[in-house]
């Protein structure tokens, strides 16, 4: 079934992830060619396109979002920018002191590891509500509808409890002061 741009936006605003699947299938060839033509690999192309779709998702899900061009044009621009940044990052990495860079990454890795482990220990509904709130930027009303909760207050309370549970989990392993330099 062919969807119009406005139908796609409508679906995204409802948090319907199948709209992303549709866009992915619809436009991947063009993005693939763009990256391949610019010294990229197929895997890099797909990665970049997935990232571009996620950027688009985050924008489009916002109630205030208004599309000023065709979705395909928007995605193409995002892809181009992301790929340009990726090329710059690659070049910078080649030029910079790799050892120093790796050391800094390792230092931060421990904290990130703990956080990720704690997130994965959360229940599915907690993970969802925190993701919808912090990543997707959905309003409490949207979250309530998407998750089948009674109302936005219920969603708000649940979000608060889930965040507190995550904080407690992380704090039970490390205190903020442990991360002091």
């Amino acid at each position, binding site marked *: 079934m062919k969807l119009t741009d406005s139908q796609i936006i409508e679906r995204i605003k409802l948090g319907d992830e199948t709209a992303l699947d549709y866009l992915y299938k619809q436009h991947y060839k*063009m993005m693939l060619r763009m990256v391949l033509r610019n010294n990229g690999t197929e895997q890099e192309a797909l990665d970049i396109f997935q990232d571009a779709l996620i950027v688009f998702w985050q924008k489009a899900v916002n109630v205030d979002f208004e599309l000023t061009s065709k979705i395909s044009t928007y995605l193409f621009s995002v892809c181009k920018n992301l790929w340009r940044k990726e090329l710059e990052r690659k070049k910078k990495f080649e030029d910079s002191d790799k050892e120093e860079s790796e050391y800094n990454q390792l230092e931060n890795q421990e904290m990130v590891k703990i956080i990720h482990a704690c997130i994965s220990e959360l229940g599915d509904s907690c993970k969802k509500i925190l993701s919808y709130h912090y990543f997707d930027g959905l309003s409490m009303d949207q979250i309530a509808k998407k998750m089948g909760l009674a109302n936005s207050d219920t969603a708000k309370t649940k979000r608060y409890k889930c965040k507190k549970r995550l904080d407690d989990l*992380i704090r039970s392993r490390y205190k903020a002061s442990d991360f002091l330099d």
Partner: protein
Amino acid sequence: MSETNYFRLIEAYFEGSITSTEKAMLDAKISSDPLVKAEFDLQHNIVKGISNARKQELKSRLALIDLPTNTGALLGSGVKWLAGTVVGVTIFGSILYWSLTTFDTNIKPIDLKITQKLVFNETSLANFPDAVEETEKSKQEKIIKTTSSNIKVLKAASIIEEEKDATARVEPQSLMSYEDDKLFTNQNQDDLENIESREIAHNTINKTEVEFLDPVENVNDFHYRYYNSKLYLYGDFNEMPYQIIELNDKGKKQLFLSHSEEVYMIKDNTTEITQLRKLQDEMLKLEIQLIVEE
């Protein structure tokens, strides 16, 4: 403000509900209190962790989607109905501009009528011996098919002595071919080096003929006629580089004209003088521009 309140400010910061005054206070505290800074960094990483987890979830979802193989993706065209090979007939306006200015002395507008007999300047033959030789070998009739009385014949090589009853045909200068290169050799060796450095100069696939005619009305308007693989362009194409892109697919072909950062569609079997229309399909336009950029 107590430390607890600063923690609340941190929370408000990541909720997006912090005021500008509160943010200024928090910034000041972060730069002076390592513990508050550590808490801020922790919360920042938590939010980032949640975002990353969600991002991964979405990416994994997309990665599971079954897509055709790379080869198919590359061979297939993004242009929906053009799945085949792009046989590019690309012409750079700069080449045209160069050729127009270089051969300015040789190019003379001629008035032709269908019944008019053509008599060409014999001295031109002496200037272009190879061109004549090549032409004689091929024994092609050089016929200009036109009913217009005001055509600029752009190709200097077509200046040969020949009499034909009704018409004479010229290969358009703008569609560069290997044979064209030979002709240019005799006229300006230095400029030929420039041409040879361009891959485009060796594109011999094209069979479409192009003729350039004076603008129909306004100088800024572009018109065309296109039928029997013959394209007539009306307008001033000298100022800006342009390209003609021919996309072929299973015996079907579609011409596009890229000029002044716009892409125009050229419809086949257009016998009437028609204004060039800008391509509305932005995706297709991007495709064409990608080809042009290459």
